[in-house]
């Protein structure tokens, strides 16, 4: 076994104050022989800071996976010497490794996935987000509990005073709670689908902002919509989807567009995590257009890794909508570096748009591209009764569709352009047998 260790480099994170309420953490990273986790470790450090820890030290070890503790015993002892509040492992810990570390060293270990869950749990504000976090946590912990039960059963005696039945019931309780949450989230997903349909019927096009965490999605949303959604230079600032209408000065040439900001992606997420956040990710998979945002200020390798992660998550959540890639933070790219970075991701992006949400660079180009990529509206002619009710309907059509020509006579003849959902609704209204709702919908295409 090749074992190469590096001295623990005590690198203080951004906040160097020794305030008593800030928890200290030691990060333990095991690297494979050929791998270089430099960028991943700095992201891992960012996660720890985002979770409210001050990084007391980073311990790295280059070796194969230790089946008992993930890293060598000596490295765990070295981490314990820091007397930190938490020891966080970069590599995923198996239930057995968790058990062994607790038995051998007397502390509860935490891995990267647990850290992400902790961040999510601390930021979840809506009921949906809380349920999703709880489901992800239960999905993660269920195999641990199962393993714990089987470990304890090894020394269990059958019959009276046997402890197995109670332990088993904890596992069963977890399973039933998971089933209940899934059912509730399905309801949330259904109401989301109803909401999306209603918005489409009202003539809105739905555009979802997707991308790696801290790519600048919320900033871009604010720049395009003129809203003031919380934007911060930290990982996972946004958890629940936020929808805003594109403001009139950035209007995509007559189309009314709703932009939805979604939770950021991150590397190496287990599949059950993506499953738990399915209802949130459905905002992306069911959108009319996906606006993939990437941080162009990252070094080429990191940029590529993040783009690959984004494509993987989009694939996993079943996104089929057209994709526009916006390379954000173009103002932060050093001189002469732009081509090198574009080259690094040339096979992952198609005709990207360079933008800077903070400096409002390229936003009008982006709005134009959004308009071009949206499904074209159909042109139809309808007839409305020339009554107060018909005029009310006409005023609604001005909001939902794009009237091209209106002629007032005995009836009101309207030639308009609208999306399919709006035309379907007009068709349904034409079929409505109530009184004066006598109108025709003639498809001219």
């Amino acid at each position, binding site marked *: 076994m090749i074992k190469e260790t590096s001295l623990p480099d005590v690198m203080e994170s951004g906040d160097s104050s020794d305030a008593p309420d800030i928890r200290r953490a030691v990060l333990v990273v095991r690297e494979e022989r*050929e791998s270089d986790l430099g960028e991943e470790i700095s992201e891992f450090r960012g996660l720890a800071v985002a979770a409210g820890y001050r990084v007391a030290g980073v311990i790295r070890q280059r070796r194969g996976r230790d089946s008992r503790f993930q890293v060598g015993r000596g490295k765990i002892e070295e981490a314990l010497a820091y007397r930190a509040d938490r020891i966080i492992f970069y590599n995923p810990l198996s239930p057995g490794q968790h058990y062994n570390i607790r038995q051998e060293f007397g502390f509860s270990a935490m891995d990267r996935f647990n850290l992400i869950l902790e961040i999510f749990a601390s930021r979840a504000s809506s009921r949906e987000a809380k349920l999703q976090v709880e489901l992800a946590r239960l999905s993660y912990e269920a195999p641990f509990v199962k393993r714990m039960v089987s470990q304890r059963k090894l020394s269990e005696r059958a019959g009276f005073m046997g402890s197995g039945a109670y332990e088993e019931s904890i596992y069963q309780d977890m399973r039933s709670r998971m089933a209940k949450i899934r059912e509730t989230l399905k309801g949330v997903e259904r109401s989301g689908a109803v909401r999306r349909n209603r918005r489409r019927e009202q003539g809105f096009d739905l555009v979802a902002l997707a991308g790696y965490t801290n790519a600048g999605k919320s900033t871009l949303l604010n720049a395009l919509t003129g809203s003031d959604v919380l934007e911060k230079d930290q990982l996972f600032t946004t958890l629940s989807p936020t929808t805003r209408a594109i403001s009139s000065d950035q209007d995509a040439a007559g189309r009314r567009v709703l932009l939805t900001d979604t939770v950021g992606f991150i590397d190496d997420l287990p599949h059950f995590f993506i499953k738990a956040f399915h209802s949130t990710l459905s905002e992306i998979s069911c959108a009319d257009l996906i606006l993939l945002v990437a941080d162009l200020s990252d070094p080429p390798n990191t940029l590529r890794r993040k783009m*690959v992660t984004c*494509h*993987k998550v*989009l*694939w996993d959540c079943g996104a089929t909508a*057209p*994709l526009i*890639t916006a390379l954000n933070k173009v103002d932060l790219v050093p001189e002469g570096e732009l081509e090198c970075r574009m080259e690094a991701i040339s*096979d*992952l*992006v*198609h005709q990207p748009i360079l933008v800077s949400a903070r400096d409002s660079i390229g936003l009008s180009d982006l709005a134009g591209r959004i308009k071009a990529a949206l499904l074209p509206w159909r042109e139809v002619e309808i007839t409305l009764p020339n009554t107060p009710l018909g005029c009310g309907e006409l005023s609604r059509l001005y909001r939902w569709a794009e009237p091209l020509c209106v002629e007032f006579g005995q009836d009101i003849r309207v030639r308009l352009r609208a999306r399919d959902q709006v035309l379907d609704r007009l068709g349904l209204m034409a079929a409505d047998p109530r009184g004066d709702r006598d109108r025709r919908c003639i498809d001219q295409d």
Partner: protein
Amino acid sequence: MDVVAVDISGRHEVNGRYYMLCAAVAARISARHLEKVYQVRQYPRATDTLGLREVSDLVFSATVGLSGLLLAERGDFYNIERWRVQSLLGREFKYPESLGERLAVELAHHISLSGRRLCSEWWRDGSREEEGYGIEGGYEACVQDDILGGLR
């Protein structure tokens, strides 16, 4: 970008043998879409063992003459590093990353799955049944008679 996406179906033992079919799709892709499919090829083969050598040999045979960057799922090559696969096959290779690459591999997957089903169900044909072919016998016949030749 021109690619050749491959996928192997039938990597499980049936009566002590492996009845596999490798589908190769030569296509032009973009980051998001499959732009154009140039050629689709199916290559059936039955082996006694299933190691890296058999897999790489099958993929090599299925993609001879098709130009482009080779794409395959990680599991097809037992998760080994990219450079090792490249040296085994002697050509440019990568695991799928973009949506377009994943689409191409998915297409190859559907083709290989349905092609293998076609092979293994060939025995249901009357004449084959009279000759006493089983599922594996039918597959053998399929391989020997080059039944899929017309699809290449």
